[in-house]
């Protein structure tokens, strides 16, 4: 039993080390791709970012709406319903925007990346590139990774803005909070530091979600079952990593 635990631990360390090396390799190829082949990255920003916009906006609207409802019903007990704007804004900018966007991003774009790369591997497309003396790292992995890293903070920003609109819709338009108070309270409560925290979180989550998706796809066992498992693992591991990292970043920034 201890022996098994020991081997699991060693295996975990080994995988974690390999993941870090893989990350460094991605980073080392990134400048070349950014400078010389930015078109590939733009294409992936479209795939990972633009195509995720609808789901992000719909979810943002409803999350904002819920914040408006919950904020109103709880704050009105203290006659503080005017603060619903501040509550929604802080919640969205610092926590819900980055976290939920990252979870949705991993579900929508991360799985697409992992299964695409896994299938490319299973159908020998990556080997074919290798044989054409074209590095799959540069041509396939790095652009997808960078596409995700660029998309994530932008999507989180869109999520937050639409969320605020949702909170406004519910709080002001439906429940009758004064619009001036809604925005004024928000303006007073939100500091630049809160926005930076949100930006840092969404950037870190973008790196983690894209890295894990690309990693899982690239290391998928090249069979139908293997690609399926890689896709599932992408979502599960990304979700866990993001929630742990969220806690850590919050703890540091407070």
């Amino acid at each position, binding site marked *: 039993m201890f022996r098994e635990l020991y081997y699991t631990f060693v295996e975990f360390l080994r995988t974690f080390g390999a993941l870090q090396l893989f990350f460094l390799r991605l980073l080392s190829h990134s400048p070349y791709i950014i400078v010389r082949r930015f078109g590939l990255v733009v294409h992936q920003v479209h795939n990972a970012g633009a195509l995720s916009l609808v789901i992000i906006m719909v979810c943002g609207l409803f999350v904002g709406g819920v914040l408006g409802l919950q904020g109103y019903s709880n704050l009105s007990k203290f006659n503080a319903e005017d603060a619903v704007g501040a509550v929604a804004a802080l919640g969205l900018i610092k926590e819900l925007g980055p976290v939920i966007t990252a979870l949705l991003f991993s579900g929508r774009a991360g799985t697409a990346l992992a299964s695409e790369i896994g*299938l*490319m591997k299973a*159908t*020998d*497309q990556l*080997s*074919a*590139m*290798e*044989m*054409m*003396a*074209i*590095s799959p790292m540069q*041509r396939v992995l790095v652009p997808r990774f960078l596409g995700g890293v660029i998309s994530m903070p932008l999507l989180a920003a869109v999520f937050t803005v639409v969320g605020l609109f949702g909170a406004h819709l519910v709080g002001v338009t439906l429940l009758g909070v004064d619009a001036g108070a809604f925005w004024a309270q928000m303006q007073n409560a939100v500091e630049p530091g809160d926005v930076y925290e949100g930006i840092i979180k969404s950037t870190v989550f973008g790196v983690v979600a894209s890295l894990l998706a690309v990693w899982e796809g690239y290391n998928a066992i090249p069979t139908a079952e293997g690609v399926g498992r890689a896709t599932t693992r992408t979502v599960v591991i990304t979700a866990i990593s993001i929630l742990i990292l969220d806690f850590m970043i919050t703890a540091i920034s407070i």
Partner: protein
Amino acid sequence: MNDATDNLIEIRDLDYTRGRRQIFRGLNITIKRGQITAIMGPSGTGKTTLLSLITRQLRPDRGSIVVDGIDVSALNQKELYRFRRRFGMLFQNGALLTDLSVFENVAFPLREHTKLPNRLIRHIVLTKLHAVGLRGAADMMPSELSGGMARRIALARAMVMDPDILIYDEPFVGLDPISMGVIVRLVRQMNDALGISSILVSHDVQEIAAVADCSYLIADGKVAASGSPDELSNTSSEVVKQFMHGMADGPVAFHYAAPNYAEQLLGRDVE
């Protein structure tokens, strides 16, 4: 190119083990320049592995692989990529890039490796597509192609950089007789018209007999027989005979290693 020698690829004393299974034990193969060399063998003998070793997608445990005077295992990453440009490889299922059209698939190596103007790329790609008879399919996506068509497109892509060596990994698997005939003819034509050398991995004895200049039969990690297809057909070796004539049982046993049948049925092997 080193014209002094006729031998393009020399494999000497090659050992390779995957997991616990030893795939090659002292394998020796010589591939001659300008010929079509077939590597045959029952499924699971490591034919595709051998191709991966030649192109250094894998490294051998022992032994040397020399391609045109270059020791393959001594190459660094940059030299390896330069070395691989001399190869064109046709994968078993074509391995076309599914997000690109047929035209872009064939243009892919040109766009990645050269700075040729678009008009010239178009010209080259259409020439290659015409050579495999699929100029009309240029705008199709790989998902719209039949298996035979996909393989012909992949052949056009393998040729587009004008390689010295064309490698075919099981080019005949799963094709109807017409597509098979087309591929067989293309393999021969490409080799002779372009003056290249071809390596063909397959277990389709008939097709190989029609196209190969020289064949190697691999069994048990070694070369079991070599020579022209005719020589192999008339051999006295039991393994070769079994393979060439497709006999179900022989040195390559029909039954996979298993416990005694009667005892297993009676459940005695469980005790």
